[in-house]
């Protein structure tokens, strides 16, 4: 009778699923996932039946159809004969371009403002407070529109640069034009010898890397500090500059003959142009062709360059009538004139500079717009600056938080060792602050990339503008277009956070 009897074995009752805490959570999870699956199924079926009612199918074939529309900013070759898929790619590259530019600028701005906000100088610290609070408390869209409006309404039109006494003039020794269609800047052109120049530059970079390793090893071993900064600058500039000047001196005196279809032998370029206005030029992409087009624009002609890949293609293009002017080395010119068929070719009396290994083509007023050089469109500038300034304000706060998270004792210890304030910041504080800064910084980069879809407000042709805008309304493929766009942003965001997480793992506190 004294033995403690076992409690009677309970049989499982259904009510235990709710009232017994051992089973309750499982029950809730099962029910919730059934409901979730049912909801997903219901939505999916809804889409299918609605598409059927509308008589629409679901296919991505439109990506291979001709797009029929033009895009102003293209990083790869694209025309209205290209496919919708190609247009989407142009948009994707534009999105990535503004995101990368934005992330870089925002990081610099943010670190700068975040450090300065902690400055002991009252004015500097307050200025940075005004910047941070101003930008992060006003919607991004307003900043984009404001900068765009300033650029469009506050700058001169290209035709204001024309005439004897123009209302506007170019800045920086006539190389940069600020207009209400964007900022036109010189663009680099690679000439003969550019390969050698690039090789020397890469070798210099390798030299710098080797020297820094050597200097650090030496400092570890002997404590002696070598002048890394000035040596690096010297290595970066001097060999490349020497090769550039040497090569230029060798080839810049060379003159290339001008070959004109239907011209008179020995006539000058101006005489030829009276017969053939706005001629098109066939050339392999080199500096001589660029120099020719610069000369033509100086004579108030528009000059389009038909780019070909070899001298024999120049002959084919001339014979086909795609272009009327060609410029090439004297030996190649003789061969060309000898072998060409069906067109009268003449050598003009004017010649063109062969050019230098690297030169800059400056924008010139021709026709309605500036031509030559590179155009930074207002839409890009507005979006880029607004995104950088806005996200920079958030990054500034993250950087400030990171710095404040490093204990004051670290600074004091560094000072006690005799480190100067900027070295303390660079060598002691920032490396430790990075651990706090990196994780929230990832979200800011993601935000910036996704916010770039506000491009639509200023007509910047990002992926939302091409694939998610024009392509959808021209083809009526809303579901497919939006799905693809969602997929692109998802993949991009995952890639950004993946890369930054790898970096984060390398700088975070290593625990053993």
């Amino acid at each position, binding site marked *: 009778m004294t033995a403690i009897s076992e409690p009677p074995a309970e049989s499982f009752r259904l009510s235990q699923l709710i009232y017994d805490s051992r089973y309750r959570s499982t029950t809730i999870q099962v029910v919730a996932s059934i409901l979730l699956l049912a909801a997903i199924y219901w939505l999916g079926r809804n889409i299918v039946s609605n598409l059927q009612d509308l008589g629409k199918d679901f296919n991505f074939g439109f990506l291979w159809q001709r797009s029929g529309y033009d895009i102003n900013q293209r990083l790869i070759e694209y025309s209205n004969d290209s496919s919708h898929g190609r247009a989407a790619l142009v948009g994707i590259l534009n999105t990535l371009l503004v995101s990368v530019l934005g992330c870089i600028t925002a990081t610099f701005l943010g670190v700068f403002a975040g450090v300065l906000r902690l400055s002991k100088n009252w004015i500097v610290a307050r200025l940075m407070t005004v910047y941070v609070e101003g930008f992060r408390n006003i919607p991004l869209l307003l900043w984009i529109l404001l900068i765009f409006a300033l650029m469009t309404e506050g700058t001169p039109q290209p035709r204001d640069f024309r005439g004897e006494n123009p209302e506007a003039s170019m800045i920086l020794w006539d190389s940069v034009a600020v207009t209400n269609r964007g900022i036109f800047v010189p663009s680099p052109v690679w000439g003969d010898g550019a390969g050698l120049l690039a090789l020397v530059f890469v070798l210099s970079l390798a030299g710098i890397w080797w020297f820094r390793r050597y200097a650090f090893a030496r400092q570890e071993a002997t404590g002696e500090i070598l002048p890394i900064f000035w040596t690096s600058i010297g290595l970066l500039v001097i060999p490349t500059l020497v090769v550039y000047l040497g090569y230029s001196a060798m080839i810049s005196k060379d003159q290339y003959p001008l070959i004109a279809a239907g011209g008179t032998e020995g006539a000058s370029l101006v005489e030829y142009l009276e017969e053939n206005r706005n001629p098109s030029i066939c050339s392999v992409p080199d500096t001589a062709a660029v120099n020719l087009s610069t000369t033509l624009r100086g004579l108030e002609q528009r000059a389009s360059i038909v780019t070909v890949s070899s001298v024999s293609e120049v002959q084919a293009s001339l014979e086909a009538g795609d272009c009327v002017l060609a410029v090439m080395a004297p030996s190649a010119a003789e061969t060309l004139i000898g072998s060409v068929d069906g067109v009268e070719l003449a050598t003009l009396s004017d010649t063109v500079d062969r050019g230098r290994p690297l030169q800059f083509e400056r924008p010139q007023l021709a026709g309605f*717009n500036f031509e030559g050089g590179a155009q930074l469109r207002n839409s890009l500038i507005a979006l880029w600056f607004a995104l950088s300034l806005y996200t920079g304000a958030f990054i500034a706060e993250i950087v400030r938080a990171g710095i404040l998270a490093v204990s004051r004792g670290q600074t004091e210890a560094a000072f006690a060792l005799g480190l100067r304030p900027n070295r303390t910041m660079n060598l002691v504080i920032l490396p430790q602050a990075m651990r706090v800064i990196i994780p929230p910084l990832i979200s800011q980069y993601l935000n910036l990339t996704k916010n770039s879809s506000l491009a639509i407000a200023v*007509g910047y042709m990002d992926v939302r503008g091409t694939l998610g805008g*024009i392509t959808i309304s021209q083809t009526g493929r809303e579901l497919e277009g939006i799905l693809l766009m969602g997929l692109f942003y998802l993949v991009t965001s995952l890639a950004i956070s993946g890369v930054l997480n790898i970096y984060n793992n390398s700088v975070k506190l290593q625990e053993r």
Partner: protein
Amino acid sequence: MKKSIFLGTLAVAGLAAGFVSAQTLDEVRARGNLSCGVSTGLAGFSMPDANGEWQGFDVAFCRAVAAAVLGDSTAVEFVPLTTQTRFTALASGEVDVLARNTTWTFSRDVDLRLEFVGVNYYDGQGFMVPRDLGVTSALELDGATVCIQTGTTTELNLADFFSSNNMGYEPVPVETNAEAQQQYLAGACDVYTTDASGLAATRATFEDPAGHVVLPEIVSKEPLGPLVRHGDSEWGDVARWTLNAMVAAEELGVTSANVAEMAAGTDNPEINRLLGTEGDLGGMLGLEADWAQNVIAQVGNYDEVFEGNIGASTPIGLSRGLNAQWTDGGLLYAPPFR
């Protein structure tokens, strides 16, 4: 908690997506008003006036449909749509009819599953430039910067026109006519291109309309018309015959001033059939017998609507041109009411 909010959101999203295919005519009757998609603002075609009332040529068509279906031309809810959102709004059932100077094309009719109910304005694409640019022909526009509304047929025509004439251009994409106007006036583009009627309407709102010229070239055919969803033919018939009634009323001399008198009965059996005093055309459409009377009394015939909104006496000052009755050498030709 979080999960229930999530499920709730899903359910609402699902419901909102679920009602597309019901009969539009019954829906409009049950709702008591017509939901009509119009542009975000184009003077003379669809634009709110100083009192916030929508006015214009396309707006009048919406009002005419409301008058025919509900007997009340004011029972319209106007939904302003951009060029990019218009077809999605119509296909999803957000609007019952779209009257937004939209060009009738094969692919829109067939591939986008839309149904154009007719043409209320025969138009073509033109170019507008500032007069002091000194351009007299569109063929001189090589290298120009062009403002263009995205997602339109004009965008495609523009690309075709420049490439077929071996010219280059720089497109500046804009969303709405208002945005285009602002960019054009700021000189951010040299040229604005859209339907010639749209150019005239836009120029009429400028401070100095005489400082801008519309170039002589008309580079495309742009038959603009109202449209409805594919697959609801009854509703398509109502919209189509409302438009035809307005055109036929002009041809037959029925105006808002004399419609009441004519409704008492005339010698012309076609007028009698149109106004419902003879036969039962309204009943065949599923409408009241006096549907066309309501349209003409409350909105007017085609001529009254044209002259009142975009005609020669208005600031927009368009002449009838192609849009005259066939009897006057134009293209307007309503099928017989029989």
